[in-house]
């Protein structure tokens, strides 16, 4: 007897599928298509093959890619280190820790634009807190404009990114730490393990999957970060803070070279897809391992 196919579940998927096709698939396909054209403000659009992809590597895009990865590497690494330290401190049994947990949130809660504007004034040489403090402590001879020089502007954008991104890392890792059974710490303490030894041999191994997950997610967010650099430096001075996302925006939207901008966007998509693939692979591995343990 032939089994009758029940179409009803598939029918239920149609709205979701239509939504995904409309807001994800169609723009993606359109971006790919545009990347092979010379689309601009002009009304005529011609297909130009791989010309846009060849041209972006003839420009200084390779330099932009390297800069993006350096920016991302330092941003993510510092956020993870500080987030882990923050999580340990927030997890410590000290009076008023609930208050500290609330106090760590503002950088994450405050709208990014407002937070970044605040930092732009802090970096100001004449009126900014950092320059003023540096002068009072004798570290600076006079006012120093952190956003005026390539190296200091690059570091300043990373510092701001770390300030905004660390609270989320800390809270995520705090949640992971709180899921570690207390018995493990008690057993280690009974065996005479020091505080640092307990952290190194109990805490870190057990939150390692969470750190790896957060590292990948943070890498994706940092790679895609736009507002921080745009508000602070618009990619300057002389391109020293221009990352892939800034370069793509300038090309595609500020200069209205839609075709070239789309090609750059596709390059970003390639890199982000690699991160996403890594993330999925990690999730699958963790799921399998946790499944074996249960």
């Amino acid at each position, binding site marked *: 007897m032939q089994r009758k196919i029940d179409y009803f579940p598939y029918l239920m998927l149609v709205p979701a599928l239509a939504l995904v096709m409309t807001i994800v698939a169609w723009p993606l396909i359109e971006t790919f298509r545009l990347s092979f054209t010379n689309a601009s*403000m002009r009304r005529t659009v011609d297909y130009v093959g791989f010309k846009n992809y060849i041209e972006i590597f003839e420009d200084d895009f390779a330099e932009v890619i390297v800069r993006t990865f350096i920016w991302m590497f330092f941003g993510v690494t510092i956020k993870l280190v500080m987030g882990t330290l923050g999580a340990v401190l927030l997890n410590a049994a000290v009076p008023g820790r609930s208050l500290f947990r609330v106090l760590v949130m503002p950088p994450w809660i405050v709208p990014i634009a407002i937070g970044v504007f605040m930092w732009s004034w802090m970096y100001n040489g004449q009126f900014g807190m950092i320059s003023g403090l540096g002068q009072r402590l004798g570290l600076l001879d006079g*006012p*120093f404009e952190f956003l*005026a*020089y390539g190296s200091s502007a690059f570091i300043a954008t990373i510092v701001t990114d770390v300030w905004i991104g660390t609270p989320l890392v800390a809270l995520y890792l705090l949640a992971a730490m709180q899921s570690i059974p207390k018995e493990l710490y008690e057993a280690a303490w009974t065996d005479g393990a020091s505080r640092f030894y307990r952290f190194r041999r109990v805490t870190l191994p057990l939150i390692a999957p969470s750190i790896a997950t957060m590292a990948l997610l943070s890498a994706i967010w940092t790679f895609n970060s736009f507002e921080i650099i745009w508000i602070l*430096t618009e990619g300057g001075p002389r391109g020293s803070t221009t990352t892939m996302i800034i370069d793509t925006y300038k090309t595609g939207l500020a*200069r*209205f070279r839609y075709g070239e901008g789309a090609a750059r966007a596709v390059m970003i998509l390639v890199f982000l897809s690699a991160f996403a693939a890594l993330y999925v692979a990690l999730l699958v591995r963790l799921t399998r391992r946790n499944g074996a343990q249960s």
Partner: protein
Amino acid sequence: MKLRHILATTALFALGTGAQAATELKFINCGGSDSDFVTTQGEHIAEWEAANPDYKVALEFIPWGQCQEKSITLAAAGNPVAVSYMGSRVLKQLADSELIRPFNLTDEELGSYSESVLRTVRIGDQVWGLPRAFSTKALFWNKDLFEAAGLDMPEGPKTFADVIAASKAIDENTDAKGLGIAAASFDNTMHQFLNWMYSNGGEVVDADGKVAFDSPEVVETLQFFKDVSAYAQEGPIAYDRAKLEPLFQEGQIAMYVSGGWGRGRLGNVENAGINLIPAGPSGDGHSTLLITDSLVVFEGTGVEEAAESLVRYLTSVEKQSEADRKGGWTPIRQTTDTEELIASDPTWEPFIVSIPTGGPEPLMYEYAAMQDAINEAIQGVILGEVSPAEAAKAAADELRELNGE
């Protein structure tokens, strides 16, 4: 039966209302919605609507940061608004892309504008936008700081050499710095430079439409920036023009370049002078950058004629003059109102007498790319990473590529 009657009546009523409804005319205005200018413009629009009852103007205010991009993107995507307020700098891009329509002005209408103002909106023989807001620039200087530095310049700096000498003396003899320089990766970095470049006889694009950014006059102006930056505020690359204002108001810099609006923003500086932009050694005298914002009419809306009528009404001599006064802008047309303005407030004079000798924002198809190239040259010179000649040549090469030379 009753329900059928109600539905039929409603449908007929809706059809009737639809037939009578005025056609919407979408108008994007850059900037905020709560100024005296906006109120005045609203009154003028209401007058036009009263005379054209078939149309209703739907005004949308968008902050400057996104305004032009929104109008252009809508037009490029085939969904243009009828009228938009635009920096005249993008007119060439819009015109070459056939997104906007030209205005056929009579000789009388053309004659109501200064030739230098027309150059900001005219490409070839056609005018692509009608000037809506206008600014010229002048040098603001703090007389008390000049005196404290022991400078004998009662009339203030008149030449590049005066500015360098004054900046040096102020840096050495007071706690303040000399000329405030804006060099951030922002449009007014190029604007500030163009004021000085025009006063030194330089051009970005010459009369034949060829790039001339590596001319001796431009190199000389870049050299001036390099020399004077030694006595400027720390880190000019972190500053746009707006950030220089508080420095001038606090007496931390002795000079800076600003528009007419700066007259009312002197802060603690009680004794300020306002001079024409000092002349460079190779220039013919004082000059300034002329910046206009325009109203443009987009193609493909089906209401182009009405849109043009609205723009012509808003920018007519009388209405525009009123808008200029309310907006606090340099008068676009030189009328009796202008003479009255100078008579009632002589600080307007440097902003107005420089109009005939002023130069326009260069009209290049890829305006943003042109701006980036010039800003990089300025930043490179100030940071000491390239010489003025190298910076000018690198920028000129890029500009020639953009200009299709």
